[in-house]
């Protein structure tokens, strides 16, 4: 590409993705952005200057060959672009939507130094959606069976990645999932309006067509332990059981009716479809005034879900200031467009109930920022005597998750750290127990979809090697 062409390309403005009007969308659960049109995708793809040393690739945790797939889009070869993506990323339609791109691939994009970065994530989403919507999904050739069988615990992004990689290498794979639907957080946590569930399920269907067996309603540790799986014909096991243990605040009144963990609230609404109650049987308290405690993506997802269940007011209560909000800027922006309020530098002290044990208010205290703490952010400190109350009949606690303890509890020879996360060799996902691998949130604590998938990929390579050679 000569200097002139680069200059021309840099002049193309970043394409904006059309989205549902905020007033409209807070009344429904349909996806917010509509995605690029083919014309927009081509225009956006042309903004990529096809760097010789593409920094973007290093910014992607699974090192997708970004310039290559973007070039294919620029040439109108959308299906080929999707195939290229799938060589390194089993779930491009998912990652294109939920990756924090602005902190990863797009953060280091060369174009971004002078103008807006290339919309890598949106292009990824476009190619994957195009392939799916045009029925062009083809199943890769599966090699002859190696004679080896692997078990995967948990059908979240980590486990699904391992399963896909291992069948492509010729092994038999069975995924055991505790819930009645595969997908992990993609199904029970991330809301429909951010990640339509049919996309997750079509990715799962794709894995099934490649030969992955998925056993639902199977809680490993209760139904069968890891040791039993290893004794019953599985040559290797991958544990991808996630970080599903909600943290609470341990303040008075936390067990009043109307106080939810984000996991419970989101599971009721997403997985169990409480937003369609009573057509679906699972209820959720809709409330008039909803308060969400926390400032991360889970808090934002809970708050934007609450906005759609029609209360009068939804606010985020966060103990630091706006700058420290860990949520993605895009999410905060979407939330505000939808009417979300922020009560910053505020911390709950207790939940106050009525005579029936239902939440009616929160007592809070104002905070100010003091010296930086070990995370480098300024530590919030209480302002004495600043107590005040906020009216609320629903409170959602979104202050993070701990490690799911079921597997480590029933397999004591798998080493865990003091937070209960499984310890592994980060290069290959090997745990302290021979034949057992792990990755994703159960290892990292709450992280991201793409990091979980990267772990899955490395573990699958190592499992393949172990199953073929028997060397640990």
């Amino acid at each position, binding site marked *: 590409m000569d200097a002139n062409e680069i200059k021309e390309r840099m002049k193309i403005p970043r394409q904006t993705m059309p989205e549902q009007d905020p007033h409209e969308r807070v009344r429904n659960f349909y996806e917010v952005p509509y995605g690029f049109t083919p014309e927009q995708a081509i225009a956006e793809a042309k903004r990529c200057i096809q760097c010789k040393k593409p920094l973007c690739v290093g910014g992607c945790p699974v090192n997708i060959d970004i310039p290559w797939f973007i070039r294919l889009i620029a040439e109108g070869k959308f299906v080929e672009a999707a195939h290229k993506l799938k060589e390194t990323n089993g779930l491009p339609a998912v990652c294109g939507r939920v990756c924090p791109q602005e902190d990863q691939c797009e953060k280091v994009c060369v174009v971004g130094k002078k103008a807006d970065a290339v919309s890598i994530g949106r292009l990824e989403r476009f190619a994957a959606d195009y392939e799916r919507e045009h029925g062009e999904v083809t199943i890769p050739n599966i090699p002859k069976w190696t004679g080896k069988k692997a078990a995967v615990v948990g059908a979240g992004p980590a486990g699904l990645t391992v399963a896909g990689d291992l069948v492509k290498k010729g092994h038999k794979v069975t995924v055991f999932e*505790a*819930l*009645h639907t595969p997908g992990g957080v993609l199904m*029970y946590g991330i809301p429909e309006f951010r990640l339509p569930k049919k996309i997750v399920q079509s990715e799962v269907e794709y894995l099934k067509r490649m030969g992955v067996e998925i056993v*639902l*309603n*199977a*809680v490993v540790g*209760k*139904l*069968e332990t890891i040791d039993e799986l290893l004794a019953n014909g599985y040559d290797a096991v991958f544990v991808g059981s996630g970080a*599903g*243990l*909600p943290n*609470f605040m*341990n303040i008075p009144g*936390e*067990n*009043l*009716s*109307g106080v*939810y*963990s984000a*996991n*419970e609230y989101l*599971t*009721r609404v997403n997985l*169990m*479809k409480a937003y369609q*109650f*009573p*057509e*679906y*049987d*699972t*209820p959720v*308290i809709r409330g008039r005034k909803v308060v969400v405690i926390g400032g991360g993506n889970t808090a934002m997802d809970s708050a934007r879900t609450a906005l759609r269940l029609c209360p009068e007011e939804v606010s985020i209560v966060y103990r630091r200031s706006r700058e420290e909000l860990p949520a993605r800027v895009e999410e905060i922006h979407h939330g505000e467009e939808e009417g979300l309020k922020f009560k910053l530098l505020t911390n709950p002290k207790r939940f106050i109930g009525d005579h*029936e*044990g*239902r939440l009616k208010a929160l007592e809070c205290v104002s905070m100010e920022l003091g010296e930086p703490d070990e995370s480098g952010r300024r530590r919030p400190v209480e302002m004495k005597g600043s107590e005040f109350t906020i009216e609320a009949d629903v409170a959602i606690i979104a202050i993070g998750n701990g490690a*799911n*303890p*079921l597997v480590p509890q029933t397999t004591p020879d798998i080493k865990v750290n003091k937070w209960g996360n499984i310890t592994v060799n980060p290069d290959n996902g090997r745990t302290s127990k021979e034949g057992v691998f792990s990755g994703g949130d159960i290892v990292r604590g709450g992280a991201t979809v793409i990091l979980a998938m990267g772990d899955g990929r490395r573990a699958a390579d190592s499992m393949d090697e172990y199953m073929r050679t028997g060397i640990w």
Partner: protein
Amino acid sequence: MYEIVEKAELAHTVYQYKIKAPLIAKKRKAGQFVVLRLNEMGERIPLTIVGSDDKEGTITIIVQEVGKSTAMLGDMTVGDSILDVVGPLGKPTHIEDFGIAVCVGGGIGTAPVLPIAKAMKEAGNKVISIIGARNKGLLILENEMREASHELHITTDDGSYGHHGFVTQVLQKFIDEGMKIGCVVGIGPVPMMRAVSNVTRPYGIQTVVSLNPIMVDGTGMCGACRVTIGGKNQFVCVDGPEFNGHEVNYEELMLRNRSYIKEEKTAMEEFTYHEGAKCYDRECK
């Protein structure tokens, strides 16, 4: 899909089912439960595993119709299938030889008591059981409990059968007579479990109750089932369902169990509107 292979009516609106679930049948122990979802639109409801047959590959559950989901289950019959059954969940009952084990079942609570009584007897305990119901027609598992126990006492609130009064009165009488009780297991409606615990507390008799909070996943992921026990938050689905009866905050559990009263009524009204009226007795809850 999990097929129903046997159904029996034990009392008015109380049914016993055998369900094909071979892996669970092989694994389950006394005190554990399953979570089931009847169909695509269904909610996840927990039910105790009352028994199992490893050879047939079946588990037995007993359910009382108290709302929409249990009423829909009550309408299902042999040959029908349940969409999802997951288990065995929760920790098994701690069984050891306590000498004398008193097993107390109130109403539908007799169902979860049965496997515990059996296991206690097997472990060498002298098992003395007390089962109660509001009236004779609602009493369940009399013969099974008789077989599982060395002694069986029956109470009805209205005096229509057995001792006229509450299970706790019989328990108090044992204590007053100087019976050396090693352990009491009490399962039934929350007020009954609270009453049993109040009876044994002054004497320091070890008392185990099995809690029935509202659950969603049943695997420790959501915290819906949390109850304060001994001042600490516990997740009943993974830390229980059985706890030291003297440490449970029963008031909190009762209030939390009423969280969806309004929604449950709506669901039931919609259901009876479409399916025709049925008699539901929610008094015993």
